[in-house]
């Protein structure tokens, strides 16, 4: 008896141990290393690092700027995202799916591409404005190089994030609550203000917290818009310090990155406190409310929505494409001047750029592949596991993604600056440190859909295999993986799209030979070669769109909500 009993738990223990090791390596270790650098730089407890950081005026200026653009961007995102969510969800607006797809699209585009696209639209060299002869004279300052420019673009970038969360909340709103208010004599607007929006407080707060964390940690937009105006936020300050000082200033930047982490966490805490103040629980579940009939306002609302989409999506992309076709800075685009030279140059002629395409592709594929592979067993333990401590794993996987990317990048640098003990393997200054950071940061993107995939599967399917005599690993391979594969793979594709034009992490970790698309794009733009940067952006955006189409093929097999752009 005893041997049969002992045998039974073996595979589960192996799996749990493997998962624990992976998570410790990817999530707990870097965070601990970062904290150690702050409280005990060089191995002994001291407050030197903290004191030095606090004493520097640059820290305070950048913190202030971070808060300004963080709060400003969040407000804009919450206002626009909520408004669009209410219009799209609660009214009888037409072409809803197309509208959702177009409005959510900016979320799938890397922030620095958004920044570049908008810069090309309004700058003095704008090929778009030149089409109408409306471009400001060369040498004029681009109006987006400013605080309000950064706030505007952060709002555009993360409005869709708010939209998705608020829309999910609105869809769960039971119609009885709305109907009871209307039966009580309230007009539609009164219902919206007194019933719908108050009930949506938790969704809106959660969305605001997420938008805040994203705004505060964003690197691409303040890098493209703020650095030229010498308007530094914490992530760009860290970048500049590292770019100028190298590993010597790591301790200083570690302090700054923890500061960003604290600001982000403060945002999340505020949300927690705010949504606990009242009871917002919705007890009943039922059909969603009948859409409100816009009536004679419908054409106007339609026009407004599509205008918004043209402004936030179509025009910037159009501007980007135009710029990528112009042979040089400031030249007007005509049938004669249009050229594909920029594409040829970045794809085949420029060493770093073609290397970057290669690097980013394989990094994204490797990160996606690994994440899918690991997400299935981790998801299994989290969704179906019996041990309660396993649920803590979920939190630790979320952490590197919830915290701004800069935090993880600095932590990775600290961990791998010196060769790995015992093995002597050097990751610093190689492409592998970027891969490590991608794995740590994006794992959760594959894990979340996988877990919701697990929740949709009847556990009896696994139990049936178990009574058929299949051990854990056999069940994983033959039953569980095939069943959660669509969700996990969709997560993998999301990772690929996100990692392909990622900049925040690689900007701090790259070295010569391990450039990524984001890094080369950034350096082109900094060097004034917007045309090349635009060409690279157009290519990545095209790849992303293509992948979105491919991923759509998986949609019938996926839990709802896995693909953000699908309605």
């Amino acid at each position: 008896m005893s041997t049969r009993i002992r045998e039974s738990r073996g595979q589960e223990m192996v799996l749990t141990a493997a998962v624990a090791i992976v998570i410790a390596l990817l999530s707990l270790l870097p965070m601990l290393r970062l904290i150690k650098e702050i409280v005990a730089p060089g191995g002994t407890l001291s407050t030197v690092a903290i004191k030095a950081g606090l004493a520097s005026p640059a820290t305070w200026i950048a913190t202030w700027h971070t808060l300004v653009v963080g709060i400003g961007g969040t407000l804009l995102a919450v206002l626009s995202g909520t408004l669009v969510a209410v219009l799209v969800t609660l009214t009888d607006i037409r072409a809803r799916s197309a509208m959702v797809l177009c409005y959510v699209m900016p979320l799938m585009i890397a922030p620095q591409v958004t920044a570049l696209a908008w810069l090309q639209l309004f700058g003095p060299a704008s090929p778009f404005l030149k089409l109408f002869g409306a471009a400001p004279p060369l040498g004029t300052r681009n109006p987006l190089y400013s605080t309000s420019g950064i706030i505007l673009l952060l709002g555009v970038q993360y409005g869709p994030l708010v939209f998705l969360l608020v829309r999910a909340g609105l869809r769960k709103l039971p119609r009885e609550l709305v109907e009871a208010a209307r039966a009580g004599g309230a007009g539609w607007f009164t219902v919206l203000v007194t019933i719908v929006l108050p009930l949506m407080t938790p969704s809106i707060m959660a969305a605001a917290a997420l938008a805040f964390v994203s705004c505060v940690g964003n690197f691409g937009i303040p890098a493209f818009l703020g650095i030229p105006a010498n308007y530094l936020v914490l992530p760009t300050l860290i970048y500049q310090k590292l770019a100028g000082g190298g590993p010597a200033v790591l301790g200083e930047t570690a302090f700054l990155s923890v500061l960003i982490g604290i600001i982000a966490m403060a945002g999340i805490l505020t949300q927690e406190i705010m949504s606990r103040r009242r009871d917002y629980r919705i007890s009943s579940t039922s059909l969603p409310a009948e859409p409100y009939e816009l009536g004679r306002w419908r054409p106007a609302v339609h026009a407004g929505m599509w205008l918004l989409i043209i402004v936030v999506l179509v025009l910037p992309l159009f501007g980007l494409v135009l710029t990528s076709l112009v042979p040089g800075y400031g030249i007007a685009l005509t049938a004669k001047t249009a050229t594909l030279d920029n594409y040829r140059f970045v794809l085949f002629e420029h060493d770093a750029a073609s290397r970057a395409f290669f690097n980013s592709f394989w990094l994204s594929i490797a990160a996606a592949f690994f994440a899918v592979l690991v997400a299935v067993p981790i998801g299994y333990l989290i969704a179906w596991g019996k041990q309660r401590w396993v649920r803590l794993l979920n939190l630790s996987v979320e952490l590197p993604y919830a915290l701004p990317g800069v935090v993880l990048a600095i932590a990775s640098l600290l961990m791998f600056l010196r060769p790995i003990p015992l093995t002597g393997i050097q990751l610093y200054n190689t492409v592998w440190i970027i891969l490590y950071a991608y794995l740590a940061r994006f794992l959760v993107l594959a894990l979340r859909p996988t877990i919701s995939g697990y929740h949709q599967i009847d556990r009896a399917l696994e139990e049936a295999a178990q009574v058929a005599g299949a051990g854990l690993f056999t069940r994983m391979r033959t039953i569980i993986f095939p069943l959660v594969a669509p969700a996990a793979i969709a997560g993998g594709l999301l990772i690929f799209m996100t990692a392909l034009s990622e900049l925040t992490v690689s900007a701090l970790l790259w070295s010569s030979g391990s450039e990524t698309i984001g890094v080369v794009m950034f350096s082109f733009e900094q060097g004034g070669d917007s045309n090349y940067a635009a060409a690279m952006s157009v290519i990545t955006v095209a790849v992303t769109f293509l992948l979105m189409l491919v991923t759509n093929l998986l949609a019938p097999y996926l839990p709802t909500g896995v693909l953000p752009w699908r309605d």
Partner: protein
Amino acid sequence: MARLSLDNVTKSFANFDAVKDVSIDVGDGEFLAVLGPSGCGKTTLLRLVAGFEKVTSGEIRIGSEVVSGKGGSVAPEKRRVGIVFQNYALWPHMTVAENIGYSLKVAKLDKAVARRKVEDALALVNLQGLGERRPANLSGGQRQRVALARCLVAAPSLVLFDEPLANLDVHLRASMEDEFASFHKRTGTTIVYITHDQAEAMALADRIAVMDGGRLAQLATPRELYHEPANEMVASFISQGILLPADVLSAEERGHCKVRVLGAELIVRCRPGERPRTGAKVCCRSADLDVSPDGPGFDGLVKRVIYQGGSARIEFTPSTNPDLTLHFEQPDPVALESGAQARLRIRSGWLIPAAGAAS
């Protein structure tokens, strides 16, 4: 084939006992139904036997092997039990044949042998030629048959059914019941069959274990459960037995004794050794009641008449005890109307043994 024994099995979750001190011995080749209202612990019991849950205390043996007990728990995949799940649990990404052959593949059986076994199993459940279909393209009854075939193919020593007919419509239920019965007859497998449907349990099982609040209320043959319920719960749960307060007037004699119920004296069946006592309960079935306008009996009020086609269900309140409701059937032509006075007679009944009396 194997015996299954549960010895004082208890399963506690955070702060309640789902299964409390249950002991059952299922004989080799026996068909045991576990019957009870929802939340009585019957599904937990099945999951304990299958090994999905671990016992808090007590011991479970399959054959001569202890599979759950103090020393630990044998994993479900090593117990060689078969389960037919309530919602079939067919793997959607495999064909019918792959579903059925899964356990053979896991056991690394020779492919040709496995194929033949799958064919045999398909034939056994009358699904020849459907091996290449996907579960999604089958009807509810066919899915149930595939689930049955999947569990048979490995020739398990013990088969557990978890409310297998709950998701089928009435007509299919009857034919699947026949199928389960003939399957049991043919294979002689030991079966534990979880259900909340009394008719199903009565029709199929050799013995029925009635569960209530995690405890085993009674373990007996269907006839015994109906005629000689061991306690009030079983009496009222099985076929809506009517419980009436009674005083026992005479000691047991040849399985009967004299009692007073609602002021009238009558002879009821009872366990050996019953002695006169007060505060006893008698269980009557609706068939034990009839209207007797001027014979011995008790008066009362007809509260409700529910016509059921061919007969009516009469709900009746005795005037001496207005809190009680008795019900019985009256065939057409129904003479009673609600609000009318009537006189009832109890022909027979069963004296519920005193609580704590040995069974």
